[in-house]
């Protein structure tokens, strides 16, 4: 082959003795040979007695086999208070093992064979797939069938999945693109729609193993499943194998897709989400799109190509190329199967160009209606779609996937072939009509995510602005609730007064400032870090905290509503959210509760009896200026424990915080706890030992002054 090649090339080299440039054609002069005739292979479709529909498409090129399943289920079926149930079920179905094998054993089994099995559940479908070398098909299929039919949903794997779900919630506001896409979805479909609702700590916490089992039992039946096989296999042998593994799977109830709730009427308006640590504004505007079944789908596809689907598109040419406003700009009318898609147009741009960018987007959307695609634009768009058509069926796996998709959503099996003809039929008048019908500038919700202080013009110049609060709702408070009653309130105030006398002394209500220093040991994954901390609290709300870490001193100063932080010579202002959090912390600080125990904004309710490390104490629920915590008070008036819904100091994650106070010693007529242990969600996080403590120290104002940057 090589020698022939060389020879062939040498001959041609002779023929090309003339200068090459003379024979180079400009692209417009190039003529193309016809595209080789190619008939799209059709999968063989067989339905087993129990309703399982099987699609098979052999392809001998590589010694691999892939089996995939599509199941009629989805998060559209889950109850709102358990948002995340369907997705978690899809995760734990794979990790949680089967009746026969643990999840870890399955992982080892697959890893050794370089095979994979994956499961997941989306909005309106469940998925399961396996991929292996052809020699391993029988073995891997056995495991795959078990995972589909009898997943064990091991409790420990559910817990891991919940940890990851919580991690994703904690991070969901870190990425500005994610925020933008998610919030537009919520504006268009409505926050409560299954297509847009968030998983929250509370909904994740509410999901149990029984829920997973029930969800699986409801949907995973052969008559709800489409199964596809592609790769190097023999169809007869494969069918025998599938009969063996799935033949005795009992039928279940046939399910219809539920009506998916979403906002039917648009909610136009201007919406803003503040994100301060970015250089860019993320802009998107949208409303509902169309359904796949809409006969206008093809005209819309062509319209999308003209508007934002390509280099030649209006949005790319005008906004990215001409105006240089954005690296990424997009726009089009989305189509959905189970519900309409989303019509959206958006881009990211410099904060200082926000107004210009919004105008540009609006211009394009209005423009495609008033100046619908020209014959030239139409021709180019159609050519583009039709010329690239061959890529819709350029692999067996793709072909199989499409056939299963059409069957699942009830589209005709020849959808791909008729797609071609339907695109060819689209006229300029069609695109003009669908532009008017499906792009409604006055129905658009405009969302901008960024830092308004740097916008080139106020967002309100586009209309009255609604600010969306994307603060992540905290996890549910798992502490015991106390029954309120007249007696309880009276007893509560009395108990709090006792605490104040014990911890604060006779002049508890008139102390000006308290300074203290402590050594804190922070425990992290088996290792320990010792920090020297000092604090100066000047009532009501001036706080200076310094920590000496191995990396240097870190100082945080909060003075009323402002604050700053220094670390390694750098001075940074405290973000408003952090100041708020510090103030909230102060309102349940024991020193503050003692100082303001008699104030009208202090609410105290006594509860039942409890104990801390064997010592009996009375529960006291305290709320100061809206911030709640529970104390457990010993007979002598000392506070043994304080619990509240707070945040882990080492990370930002919310959790159930417990402070334990011990080693009380008398100082200046007050009982002062010399040891404090902090637990978060039951795990010990920090221990502090008091080194020094002083009431009404002289206050050096320089300590609160912000150093020059």
């Amino acid at each position, binding site marked *: 082959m*090589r*020698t022939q*090649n060389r020879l062939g*090339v040498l001959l*041609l*080299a002779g023929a090309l003795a003339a200068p*090459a440039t003379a024979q*180079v054609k400009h*692209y417009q002069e*190039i003529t193309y040979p*016809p*595209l*080789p005739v190619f008939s799209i292979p059709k999968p063989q479709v067989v339905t087993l007695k129990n309703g399982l529909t099987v699609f098979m498409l052999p392809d001998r*090129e*590589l*010694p*691999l086999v892939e089996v995939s399943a599509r199941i009629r289920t989805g998060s559209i079926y889950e109850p709102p208070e358990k948002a995340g149930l369907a997705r978690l079920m899809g995760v734990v179905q794979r990790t949680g093992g089967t009746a026969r094998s643990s999840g*870890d054993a399955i992982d080892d089994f697959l890893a*050794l064979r*370089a*095979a994979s099995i994956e499961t997941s559940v989306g909005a309106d479908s469940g998925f399961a797939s396996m*991929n292996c*070398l052809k*020699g391993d098909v029988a073995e891997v299929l056995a495991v795959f069938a078990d995972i589909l039919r009898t997943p064990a949903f091991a409790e420990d794997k559910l817990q*891991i999945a919940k*940890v990851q779900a*919580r*991690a*994703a919630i*904690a*991070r969901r506001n870190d990425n500005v693109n994610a925020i933008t896409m998610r919030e537009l979805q919520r504006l268009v479909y409505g926050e409560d729609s299954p297509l847009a609702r968030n998983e929250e700590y509370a909904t994740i916490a509410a999901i149990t193993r029984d829920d997973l089992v029930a969800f699986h039992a409801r949907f995973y039946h052969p008559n709800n499943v489409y199964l596809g096989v592609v790769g190097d296999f023999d169809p007869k042998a494969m069918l025998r194998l599938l009969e063996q593994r799935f033949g005795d799977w009992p039928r279940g109830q046939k399910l219809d897709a539920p009506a998916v709730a979403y906002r039917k009427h648009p909610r136009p308006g201007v919406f803003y989400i503040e994100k301060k*640590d970015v250089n860019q504004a993320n802009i998107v505007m949208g409303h509902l799109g169309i359904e796949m079944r809409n006969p206008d789908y093809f005209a819309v596809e062509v319209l999308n190509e003209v508007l934002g689907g*390509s*280099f*030649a598109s209006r949005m*790319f040419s005008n906004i*990215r*190329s001409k105006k*240089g*406003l954005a*690296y990424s700009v997009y726009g089009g009318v989305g189509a959905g199967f189970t519900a309409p898609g989303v019509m959206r147009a958006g881009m990211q741009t410099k904060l200082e160009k926000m107004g210009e960018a919004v105008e540009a987007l609006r211009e394009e959307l209005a423009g495609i209606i008033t100046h619908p695609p020209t014959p030239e634009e139409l021709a*180019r768009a159609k*050519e*583009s779609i039709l*010329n690239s*058509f*061959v*890529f819709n069926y350029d*692999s067996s796996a793709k072909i199989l996937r499409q056939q299963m998709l059409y069957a699942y959503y009830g589209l005709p099996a020849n959808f791909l072939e008729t797609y071609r003809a339907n695109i060819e039929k689209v006229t300029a008048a069609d695109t003009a009509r669908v532009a008017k019908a499906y792009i409604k500038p006055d129905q658009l919700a405009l969302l901008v995510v960024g830092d308004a202080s740097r916008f080139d013009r106020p967002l309100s110049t586009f209309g009255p602005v609604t600010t969306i609060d994307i603060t992540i709702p905290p996890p549910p408070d798992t502490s015991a609730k106390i029954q309120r009653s007249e007696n309880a309130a009276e007893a509560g105030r009395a108990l709090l007064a006792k605490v104040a006398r014990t911890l604060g002394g006779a002049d508890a209500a008139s102390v000006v400032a308290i300074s203290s220093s402590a050594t804190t040991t922070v425990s*992290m*994954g088996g*290792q320990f870090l010792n920090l020297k901390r000092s604090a100066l609290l000047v009532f009501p709300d001036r706080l200076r905290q310094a920590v000496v870490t191995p990396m240097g001193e870190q100082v*945080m100063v909060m003075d009323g509503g402002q604050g700053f*932080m220094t670390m390694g010579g750098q001075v940074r202002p405290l*973000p408003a959210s*952090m100041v708020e959090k510090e103030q909230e912390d102060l309102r349940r600080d024991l020193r503050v509760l003692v100082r303001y125990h008699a104030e009208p904004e202090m609410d105290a309710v006594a509860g039942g009896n409890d104990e801390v490390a064997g010592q009996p104490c009375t529960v006291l629920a305290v709320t100061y200026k809206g911030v709640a915590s529970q104390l457990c008070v010993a007979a002598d008036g000392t506070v043994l424990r304080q619990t509240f819904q707070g945040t*882990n100091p080492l*990370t930002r994650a919310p*959790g159930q915080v417990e402070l334990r106070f011990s080693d009380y010693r008398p100082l200046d007529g007050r009982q002062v706890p010399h040891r404090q242990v902090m637990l978060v969600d039951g*795990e010990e996080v920090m221990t502090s030992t008091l080194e020094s403590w002083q009431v009404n120290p002289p206050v050096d104002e320089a300590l609160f002054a912000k150093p020059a940057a």
Partner: protein
Amino acid sequence: MRNGIRYVWVAVALLAVAAPALDAQDLASFSKRLTEHRLDNGLTFLIYERPTAPVVSFFTYVNVGAAQEVPGITGLAHMFEHMAFKGTSTIGTTDWEAERQALARVDQAYHALYRERTRPGGGDPETLARLQKEFEEAQEAADAYIKKNEFGEIIEREGGVGLNAGTGSDQTVYFYSLPANKVELWAYLESERFLDPVLREFYKERDVVMEERRLRTDSQPIGRLIEQFVATAFVAHPYKQPVVGYMSDLESFTREDAEAFYRTHYVPANMVIAIVGDVRAKEIIPILEKYFSRLPAGTPPPPLRTVEPPSIAEKVVRVPDASQPVYLEGYHRPAVTHPDNVVYDAIAEVLSTGRTSRLYRSLVRDKKIAAQVGVFNGFPGDKYPNLILFFAIPSPGHSNEEVQAAIREEIAKISREPITDDELKMVKTRAKAELIRGLDSNPEIASKLAEYQTLFGDWRELFRQVERIDKITKEDIMRVAQATFVPSNRTVAMIVPLDEK
């Protein structure tokens, strides 16, 4: 025109060595459908015939990346990649002669503006405003001759898909796919774009790239972290430079800089092109000759001089950020061409690939301190000595320090104890299976062929690496781990959440 080397003996050797139970897609059968063809000007073509569907994928691999840049022009390799879509003297313009003069005036206006801007004191505001206006007017005048995006539009119109390009520290790549009957179109466009590129709309595109930097690096906590990390890990080697470039360089480099960069690096000997799909080498080689012989041979650029000196310092980078914690830990390792490359791959496999990996089981499953953990080789590139990088995202309630401790534990284990028989077997089976899986897509095959040809000088190394992995021993893994995972070889970087006390 040079022929390839005779490799039949390699195929025989491979068949003898390969495990008989595995029906691997082997070098011998692959080679039957692969033709190597080198032009006189040094350009190398690799043509792989795969008639699965009437489509063909093209992949141009230019052996220039951010590592070839110097301070003052960081970001230029990536910038040129953007420029390579702007057309030529015949594509993308309505009147080249007029446009050429207009572009010269844009350059003049820019230089005048830049000179004023960089005066001590920042320049006179009135002069600056006037020069800025003149610069904008000059650009507008030049833009009047433009046929926007003609290059991309031609490809789209003729049914092209997957049109894209990429720049890394090592390489710049350009790729797309077309229906199988349009090879000549590709030959024309691809040869023209490197024969006669016109860097039109340069300064506007520079703005777009600055937006890209803001989007990817400046606005993302992880983007910021990685930039700090890589700049600290490398003291001398240009791998420390971000591919997108530093903002100040982006604000300063010129069209002439880009042209000079292109003339230096875009020479045919520095380029490998892979063509995979429903083609026959015999039929298309004449077309390739016709269009690509026009590229002048030029002089291949000298190799990069600077070698990263041995690491003697442990480094720690802390980036305070309003974000959840993120943890990175990198160790210096040799280039991909080093014989131990497959050992590093095996170490990363055992530690981090899949749910059976050691880091997953320890940090995610057992200790539950991480939401994600992984190990990557070849950071930021692998042509030169690079980094093996550990990456973890602590889960809520857990810290960078915790994941660090757990990672160090696994590193110590793999350095001191042999891995199990099953783990070794898994690494070897996976390597074979991954090779097979990578052969099921034209663009994938094309990119791998071009990459291996450039990095190793021989595309067959794609198959040979699997053979090398098959020979790895447990002792190899411990030897390499012990030599690599030492404190003086390490750089740590982490996002420290802003309200960490």
